Structures are given as C-alpha cells and as structure tokens.
C-alpha cells in the first residue's frame, strides 16, 4: 500500500510552501484585492523561476516533464496561500487543454512559452448569465475568424492567449469546438469585470473577426472540455484542500487566542466541534483528492468518478471552512481588514468555475451508473 506522495514530491511541496509563505503572505493578496494589478507579478515570476508552469509540460517542449502528482502538491500550496496568480487558468486549464487536444504545431508553439512563463493562457467558456451548455454558445468560429463575447474570463487581462469555446455549426453536443486565440491582436478587446473576488481579476473578452485556430477536431469541443474539467477538478481539489486547511488553522489559531467569559473560545464545544467538522470534511476531501491524483497519473478508468468525488468533497470542505472561519472570528472576521475574506471569496469562485456541486453530483451518479453497467 503506497497511497501517499513520495518524499521528493513532499520536498517540492515544502519548497513551494516556503516560497509562498515568504513572498505571498496575506498582505500580497490584500494588495491585489484592493488594487488595480491583474495579479501579483512578483509571486508569479517566482513561481516561474521555480519551474511551476513547466511541471506538467514534457521536456521536449521545455517543461520539467513531471507527473500530475507534482502539480497536485503545488496546487495545494497555491490554494493555501490564496495566491493571486494565474495558476488555475494558465498552469492548469490552458496547459492541460493544449496537452489534451493541441496539434503538434500548437504544442510546439505554446508549451515552451507557457513553461518559460512568457505566455499566460486562460480558458473562456461562459457568456454571461446562464450556465454554459453545448447548445446556446453564441460566440462563433468559422473561416479562421472568431466572433463573440466571453465573460467572466479569469485572468483575461493578464492572459496572452485564450482557449475559447465557440459554435462551429454542428448538431447537438457537436455544435461547439475549442479554438485557440492569440489575445495580442487588435481584434480582441479586454474589459475588466467586477466580481466577488477582486483578488482574482476577471475580464470580458470581445472578439471581432479575431484570427484563431481550432484546438482539436471540430465538434469535439464539449467532449474535450469534459475531459479537461475532470483533470482540472483534481488540481482544483488540491487547491481547495489547501485553502480549506488554511482557513481551518486560521480559525483554530484565533480560537486559541480569543478569550470570552474568562477562557479561550477554543475551549467551548460550539467552536471545537465546528472545527472538528472542518477537519472531517477536509480529510474526506484530501483522501478523495489523492485518489483523483492517482487516477490522473495512471490514466485510470476511474478518473471521471474520482475527479467528481474529489471535486464535490473539496468544494464542500472549502465552503465550510471558509465560512466557519469568519464565524469563529466573530465581528472582527467580518471586517475588510480581516484576512478571513480571502478564502471566503476564493472558495466561491473555485466552486463555480468548473460548474457547481449540483452539476458534479449529477455527473458522479451518471459515472457510477456507467461503472456499474460496465
């Protein structure tokens, strides 16, 4: 039985954690939250220097060629720090999409730039209100030209290219394709959109006859997206586990120090049991995330099921820990000055980004049904 990360992987985790503790304390998150920057550039640069964007990129394309396990431990630390950097967009979504569906030429062009931190990629799916569905995508692609509007796009301003879900005229689920578009062209307009998490900037991207090319086959967009989301669900789960754990310990530390009625509030069962519940949810999430990581690494048939389970458990753990962290802090926890808000906001953004728990629960049962039939 070897259901744990290796010593090398733990070492990498420690290294990233140390870097983020030093260079990305909460005051950096606050700086981005309160300010105008698209992301914390010095933190991003430091992660690039550590080789983070190249972890999952093959050596032939300038990456480190490591396994998903290495990226999982890093995701956990990025989530713990609630780091305001384009990790989930560029390192997870854009990189994985290219690896999953990119042509040799596309990989050759973009992966080395991603690995070197010269390019920042993102994924542009939603078009404002309504959960995205294969039918009803209004952005169109044809004749090499992309037209339409996408929002909210995480890191849309910082990104140098985007992978966009566009209607290419097919039937049903095959109506849509993924399209890669260079954002450094005049046919692309970017506008910031305000969200509940100003520490993670989002944008509206408008395409007017923008030059773009297919990523993967035409009509395969939705299917690729589902596979991409399965992989991303695992990485997101690690980031959520990291965030949930940070929120839990923040609450614990405060509960040890804050006195009420002559003793630490952490000695009252209402607080103790609340944090015990945090821990329980966290461990369920961690164990499910581990299995997701293992399936991702093995390319196991259980990946879709494991990814859904990891996603559901981690979303629940992060939601709960981040909200009960505020509650444990009492009034001070609800002020703008409090660091509790970072995880509360981030938890919700992460919960919604790949589709919410309700959708994933439905997916999970579908996958269980398929497995039982198989």
């Amino acid at each position, binding site marked *: 039985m070897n259901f744990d990360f290796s010593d090398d992987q733990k070492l990498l985790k420690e290294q990233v954690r140390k870097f983020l503790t030093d260079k990305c304390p909460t005051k950096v998150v606050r700086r981005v939250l309160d300010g105008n920057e698209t992301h914390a550039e010095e933190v991003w640069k430091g992660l690039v220097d550590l080789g983070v964007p190249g972890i999952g990129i093959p050596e032939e394309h300038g990456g480190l060629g490591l396994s998903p396990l290495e990226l999982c431990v890093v995701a956990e630390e990025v989530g713990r720090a609630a780091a305001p950097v384009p990790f989930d967009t560029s390192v997870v979504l854009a990189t994985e999409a290219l690896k999953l569906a990119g042509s040799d030429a596309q990989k050759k062009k973009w992966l080395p730039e991603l690995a070197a931190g010269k390019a920042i990629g993102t994924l542009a799916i939603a078009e*404002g*209100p309504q959960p995205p569905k294969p039918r009803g995508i209004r952005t169109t692609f044809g004749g090499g030209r992309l037209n339409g509007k996408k929002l909210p796009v995480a890191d849309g301003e910082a990104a140098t290219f985007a992978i966009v879900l566009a209607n290419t005229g097919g039937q049903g689920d095959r109506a849509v394709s993924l399209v890669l578009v260079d954002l450094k062209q005049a046919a692309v307009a970017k506008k910031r959109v305000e969200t*509940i998490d100003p520490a993670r900037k989002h944008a509206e991207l408008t395409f007017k006859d923008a030059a773009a090319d297919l990523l993967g086959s035409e009509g395969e967009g939705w299917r690729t997206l589902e596979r991409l989301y399965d992989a991303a669900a695992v990485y997101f789960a690690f980031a959520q586990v990291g965030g949930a754990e940070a929120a839990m310990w923040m609450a614990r530390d405060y509960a040890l120090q804050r006195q*009420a009625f002559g003793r630490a509030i952490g000695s009252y069962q209402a607080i103790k049991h609340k944090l015990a519940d945090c821990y329980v949810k966290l461990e369920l999430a961690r164990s499910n995330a581990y299995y997701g990581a293992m399936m991702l690494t093995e390319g196991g048939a259980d990946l879709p099921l494991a990814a859904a389970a990891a996603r559901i458990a981690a979303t629940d753990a992060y939601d709960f820990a981040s909200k009960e962290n505020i509650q444990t802090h009492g009034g*001070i926890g*609800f002020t703008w000055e409090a660091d509790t808000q970072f995880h509360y906001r981030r938890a*919700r953004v992460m919960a919604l980004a790949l589709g919410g728990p309700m959708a994933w629960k439905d997916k999970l049962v579908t996958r269980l049904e398929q497995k039982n039939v198989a």
Partner: protein
Amino acid sequence: MDFNDTPEEAAFRKEVRAWLDANATRKSDDKQSFRARSDDPELLRKAKAWQDKKAKAGYARITWPKEYGGRGGSPILQVIYQQEEANYLVPLGFFDIGLGMCIPTMMAYASPEHLQRYVKPALHGDEVWCQLFSEPAAGSDVAGIRTKAERDGDGWVINGQKVWTSGAHYSDYGIIITRTDPNVPKHQGLTMFFLSMKTPGVEVRPIKQMSGGANFNEVFFTDVRIPDSQRLGKVGEGWKAALTTLMNERLAVGMPSGGLDVDELMELARDTDLEDGPAIRNQQVRSKIADWYVQRQGLKLTRYRTLTALSKGQTPGPESSIIKIVAAPKMQDMGAFAMELMGPAGIMKEEVPHAAGFQAQWIGGAGFRIAGGTDEILRNIVAERVLGMPADVRVDKDVPFNKLK
C-alpha cells in the same frame, strides 16, 4: 384563528393610514425604500424632519408614557404603526437605537432634569443617540470591557476604545459602559454613563466591512472628561443597567427585510436553463426552495404568534428567539446556492440578473450570523432561557478582573 385586527386595532390602523396618506408618499412596490443608516447628510436631514412630524402627531413612540411624548399605547399599536409606515417612502433607521435602547435606559436611571433635557429632542429627531458597549476584547462577552472610567474630582475621565457602534458618526449622544473598578470580578466593576459625542477626546472612525459597507464605527476615548451627573445608576452597577439595554437589543434584532428571498430564487430557477431543462424542474432545486420556503413562512408565522400575544396584552413567548438562528444561515446559504445556479457568471457583480442581490445575501449573511448575538450565543440563550438548561461553567465569575488572563 385569524390574522385580523381587533376593533380597536382596526380603528388605530385606519387612523394611522389616513395620517400617513396625508403626510407621506405610498410606495409603488414593496422593494422601494430609502437606504437607511447611510452617511448621506441629506438623508439624515430628511429623517430628522420625518421623525419630528411623527413626534408631533404622537406616533414617534406609541408605548411611551404621555409625559414623554408617547401615547401610553400597547405594544401591538406600535407594531401596527410600523407595519403601516413600512408601506410609505420615508427614511427610517436613524433613531431605533436611541429610542429603542438608549432613552429607555435613561428613563430608568437619569435624573428628572436630564430626562427633561434629552427625551424630547431624541423623540423629535433633533438629537441622535448611539450605544457604546462592544469593545475589541468584549464581543459576545460584553462584560469583558476594558474602557476605563476613573474618578477625577467631581467627574470621571474615560480612556479606551469601543467598536461596532452603529451610527456613531452621526450621533449626538451615547450611553457608554465603562470599567470603574478592575479589582473586583468583571460584572461588579462596571458603571454606565451618557455623554455627548462632541466631548473633547471622542474620536469616531468608520469600520469597513467585508461587504464593502461601513455601517459601524470604532470610537476612541482619550482623556474624555465628564461630570458625575452623567452617571446612569450606581457606581459598580453598570452591568444591571447594561442588561436592560441588551434585552431590548436582542428583541429588536428581527428579520432582515428587503433582501432577495424564495420568490426571487424561484424566478431565477425558472429563468435558468440547465443541461436537462429549466432549473425549476430539478428536484434538488425544488427541495431547497421548499426548505427555505418552510423556514421563511415559519418565521413569518412565528412573528404572527408573537403579535397575537402582544395583541392580547400578553408578554410574547420565547418564539421570537429563533428568528435570527434561522434567518441568518438561510440568507448565507441561499445566496451561495443562487450564485451556483447562475453558473460561472454567478460571481459577476453586474450584468447578471439578481446576481448582486444574492451576492449581498451570501456575504451579508456571514455578518448577520454574528451581529447582535452570534449563532452560538443565540443557541445558548435558547437552551438556557427557553429550555432551562444550565449555563456553561464560568471560570471568570469570582475572579477580580485584573487577575483574569
């Protein structure tokens, strides 16, 4: 069993409605409102004018004795007035703390001369009052306050800091609880005063909340000198006075109003297309709508039970203690769920129907679970006062305050 007024209540309601029709504008729909507790001076000016008008007509504080400008009416008449007033476009919320908590405390402890001086201006909205209780180290445990008041000749010198003071920035006066003797156990060394917020050494700073709003303040006291005549109650008996005030506070924290609720959630669910059809057809969505409807309806009806007791001249039962325990988490959870229904765009502050409203619930609910008694404190209260269960062990009860950690 019915929701009808008694003949006396009906007559009063009719009278009130006629007066309001003559003096204010009826709302065109029930979402319309003045933003209360804002720091817009113009709004405060309007609120003061409206309060004066009400006071002159005898509606400002119906339950107060006539000598203080009330009409000695029963609590149910006060409620009826408020129910009716809520249908008109008038600025409210600036005087609730003063008239609901501060002045009643003054009535219990202040001298006749002071009452003569302060009650009327408060009632007519000329002077606004605030309540200076909470401190950074004394939230749920109000008696843990550290702001000192020390004897200085004929008067007292106050030093320390208060927090979460609603309306301090537009208040003229405040009642304040202070520690006058740190050598006795915490509940015994407290004394209550009132003071002008313009007294030298008082400094008000707004607190920015996580929601972005700033409804509360920190108030700093640096060598603030006040005469002994501004003391309320005996030296060392401030806790008794504070309990009077707090009891009123906990009654006053009612249901949040004006926010989105089940109706808007249903509207959202009807308008949201999931992969397999409108979200309103999804049984998980329906189950949540049903749960929250049952809660909302349960609270509304519980309030009717309270009003019935008032209407019969009885003291309301403990039912109303459940309101915030239910309403606050519901607000937080419903907000979060509504955002989920909207998909990834649920995080956007603009351009998504109802998004801002439900986001406000999601974030405001986190604060509402804390303000005016946390979920945890309220459950203690229900268990102790309603179910008669023992208080938790109090290690601080008999220890001199300055010997506590």
